[in-house]
């Protein structure tokens, strides 16, 4: 993380030196850098959602959660774990769990449960299926529990703009599920592949706050 931040500072210093960045008279380098990074730190932390009752400890390290023959739209979810300043967070741990296509959680094993460690790049990715509707919940969702040294733990949930409960208008209908705490958690789904074997993909960035 510090490496990336210093790299951007170096670029800014070069810009100041070369005249590519002009600042008001009386500003020194420190003021210019401070002003620049204050503007840059406008990323909102990912909204908190409750963890719910079906978290399970010791989920395996696996990015492929589906197995051949699993029912449901094949789904790839990917993103980065970053700070509110946009810096990659090294050492993060991302735990995900979800219901199967039929809306049931595996309580006896670890189907559709994974622990991911993005490493220095901050990138995470997992392969799954579109979760079904759990009986006590309105919207399809994937649970996240994200931890990283020096950052507040994040419990949140990913939702899908294609979910039929949003009637094609998640801006208007996302509140149908009272547990969706922010519209920003409802993400578009991109379809690729062949019409007879489609693959959905979703991007979901995880923005953490300092502890």
């Amino acid at each position, binding site marked *: 993380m510090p490496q990336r931040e210093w790299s951007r500072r170096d670029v800014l210093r070069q810009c100041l030196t070369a005249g590519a960045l002009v600042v008001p008279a009386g500003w020194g380098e420190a003021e210019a850098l401070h002003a620049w990074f204050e503007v840059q730190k406008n990323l909102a932390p990912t909204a908190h959602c*409750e963890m*719910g*009752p079906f978290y*399970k400890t*010791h989920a395996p390290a696996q990015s492929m959660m589906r197995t051949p023959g699993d029912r449901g739209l094949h789904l790839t979810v990917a993103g980065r774990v970053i700070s509110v300043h946009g810096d990659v967070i090294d050492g993060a741990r991302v735990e995900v769990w979800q219901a199967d296509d039929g809306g049931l959680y595996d*309580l006896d094993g670890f189907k559709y449960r994974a622990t991911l460690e993005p490493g220095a790049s901050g990138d995470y990715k997992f392969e799954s299926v579109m979760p079904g509707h759990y009986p006590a919940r309105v919207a399809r969702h994937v649970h996240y529990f994200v*931890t990283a040294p020096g950052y507040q733990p994040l419990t949140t949930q990913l939702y899908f703009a294609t979910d039929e409960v949003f009637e094609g208008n998640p801006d208007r209908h996302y509140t149908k599920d009272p547990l969706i705490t922010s519209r920003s958690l409802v993400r578009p789904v991109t379809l690729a592949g062949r019409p007879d074997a489609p693959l959905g993909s979703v991007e979901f960035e995880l923005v953490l706050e300092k502890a």
Partner: protein
Amino acid sequence: MRTPMVTLTLPVDVTSLIAVPRSPRVAAGLADGHVAIWSPNEGATSLLLRPHTARVLAVGTSADGTELVSVAGDGTIARTPIAPGATPASVTVDLGPAPPRAAACSAEGSRVVIGGEKGELRVFDSRTGARTTPAVAHRAELMALAFQPGSSVVASASAEADLSLWDAASGREIRRIDCGLSLWALEFSPDGTLAAGGVARRLTLYAAKAFEPTSNMTLEAPNMIVSLAWSPDGRLLAIGHIDSDTLRKGGVRVVDASSRAVVTTIDTGGSPTFGLAFSGADTVVGAFGRELRGWSVTRG
């Protein structure tokens, strides 16, 4: 199978339920701030107290059972004599930035512990509202809280599937246990044995001092444990369960705490109960939305 001997219908949902010591009555906290004091022997009448104007999170009593202690979602802690027309003495405490998710009162009513949506725990003196913050915290929403009778030990369970035993007087953690799956119910017996159950469908008993697990009992799938209550003599344990596939169907069974043998299975009409309490030695009361239902239990 047992059918309810009596049912009491209340104005709003029951949010918490305990046995009133030294009496056959139970105290039921309600969603609108009322607390109903009721005994199945009294039929369809109850004493309705109004210690709060917000949802009741937890109820307790003084050691002699004459004074109600209650805490509500607006941060009020009230002590109310259990008598018609009684006026509560209240203090308001700071519940912190996250919404409260669970609360419990100590057995003699002097302390209240409240746990929040982000895992924070706060302990308050129920008379003064003075706060002590334990060194213990969880990282996810609190699922269940319970005080051990006759001590300052608290059991707390969060959605991260952890169980912590800690001392509310010192803040010191005694033991933390990885439960694998989340717990929904924690109840101490009169002698301090902890019963814990939840999503894993397993009831575990922990010894009173070291909190080592001493026995397990597993319910058949898909029944998860959502509520527990000990009989006053600590011999029986009522277990409320719910179907994990639907989260709609459920029931209650009463087991012998020593042998885990089923003493009776209660027919709740397929409804789950999130609150259980014994009324005297041989009656089990369950909370079902706005209703309290009582069943007699015949011991073998």
